[in-house]
């Protein structure tokens, strides 16, 4: 395991009167696949966007590889957003050109190879592609980089179980083993098998950080079971599900 890659200390973020992060603190080391787990609205996307520099925290310290979000951190982060960010006029090959121009760690050959394997025509415009193919292109772009930190925001939300397997396998086969992968999701059972560590987040705070092996060995539970236990809510009208 490497040194500290992500450090957040007392990070606060509000959207108007709505609180997204409330004094969140955490530390993550290099060389791990970490699950950022929490219910909807718990602050997962906000945290990822702050690490990326897409959101500015109201206060608190955020360091990625020892530096505040900026040009350097952006050069080492590979980000998969929760929605497509392409301009419709761009062709797949335009996007590859753009990544090749701006990211030194982008492996064009790998991207071309993945495109061929998935039978994606690089000459196609993004607006002509189906939703699923767009997501695949996005995943190819992200995983064709040899980044120090992969920030994957809900990579398997909204896709069928077969596609989930494909996405997770692609991530596992292609990430830089010296880097860290932070996967945000609430679909625990699907990602559990690939995780080394988990961060439970609720009301904008990290309420638990643990190694997956420790959870299994010490508590005799799967991450999914622990998640359900921690975030259990009583259904309206009472009773158990």
């Amino acid at each position, binding site marked *: 395991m490497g040194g500290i890659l992500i450090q957040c200390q007392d990070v606060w973020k509000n959207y108007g009167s709505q609180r997204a992060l409330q004094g969140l603190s955490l530390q993550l080391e290099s060389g791990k696949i970490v699950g950022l787990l929490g219910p909807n609205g718990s602050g997962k996307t906000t945290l990822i966007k702050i690490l990326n520099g897409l959101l500015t925290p109201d206060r608190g310290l955020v360091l990625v590889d020892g530096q505040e979000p900026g040009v350097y951190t*952006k050069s080492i982060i590979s980000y998969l957003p929760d929605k497509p960010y392409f301009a419709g006029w761009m062709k797949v090959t*335009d996007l590859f050109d753009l990544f090749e121009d701006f990211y030194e760690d982008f492996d064009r050959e790998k991207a071309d190879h993945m495109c061929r394997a998935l039978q994606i025509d690089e000459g196609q415009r993004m607006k002509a592609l189906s939703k699923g193919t767009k997501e695949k292109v996005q995943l190819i772009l992200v995983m064709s980089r040899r980044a120090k930190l992969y920030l994957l925001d809900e990579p398997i939300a909204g896709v069928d179980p077969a596609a989930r397997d494909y996405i997770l396998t692609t991530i596992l086969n292609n990430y830089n083993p010296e880097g860290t992968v932070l996967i945000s999701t609430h679909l625990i059972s699907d990602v559990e098998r690939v995780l080394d560590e988990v961060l439970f987040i609720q009301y904008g705070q990290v309420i638990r950080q643990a190694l997956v092996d420790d959870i299994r060995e010490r508590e005799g539970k799967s991450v999914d079971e622990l998640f359900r236990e921690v975030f259990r809510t009583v259904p309206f009208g009472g009773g158990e599900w």
Partner: protein
Amino acid sequence: MLKKLIKYDLKSMSRAFIPMWILAPVVSLLLSFSIRGTIAWANSSIPGRQMLTLGNGILTAVMVILFIGAGMGLLIMTVVFVIQRFWNGLLKEEGYLMFTLPVKTWELIVSKAVTATLISSISAVVGVFSAIILAVCSTEEVVRTLAMAWKYFLSYLIHVDPIFWIDLVLFILVLVAGTVKSIYHVYAAMSLGHLFQTHKVVGSCVSYIGISMVVSIITNIIGTVVSLALPDDWTYYWGFTYREGMFGMLSAAYLLYMLVFALLETMVYHVITERILSTKLNLE
């Protein structure tokens, strides 16, 4: 990195503009032929020429509408694109891509401004070129008048005061600086609108008007101070100096003031935009 950003911005903008840049002169050329035909028929003594003239007149009217449409389209497209490329390209989903590139925020802004200035300038040149085509190809009369005007202009240039050339260069610089300033004005307004929690578009419009009002107040103050500083009978001296061939100096001074003011405005707008997008970016 800035060069690479400009390359991508130019690519995204030019693909929509190139057809308009081709269409505008082609339409004016067709329109000029149509006008020429109408005049020729009207002047001819062929029996039934009225019907033919009417047909040609209708065709000319259609071409005029097309020409005005192309001109308006070019103008509206330019304004819309300047706004849209900044709004969608940086402050909406595409901003996820642009703001995660390892480049400085000022580079993103300057890239958009350079591209928008280039596109606006080319559109303006195409507009003027189309109008010239229309005028030159319509009638012999226009060609003769223009030739005379050009001849007169050339003969004027021989005797012209050297200050004229300074005025001309300053005038062109003021035009370019004015375009850049107007683009940055829109950028600053959109960045201020981005600070609003909700109704960001309304916030941007309000900011645009607010900035315009502030600039108007400042220019009025400067104007008042300058007029108070000048002697009461300065207009008399103006008339005097005009006779002495010093008119160019006065206009050069005014153009220089406009240029400096436009550059200052641009700098202020750039700083506002850059600071907001660097320290207050919120791509929710």
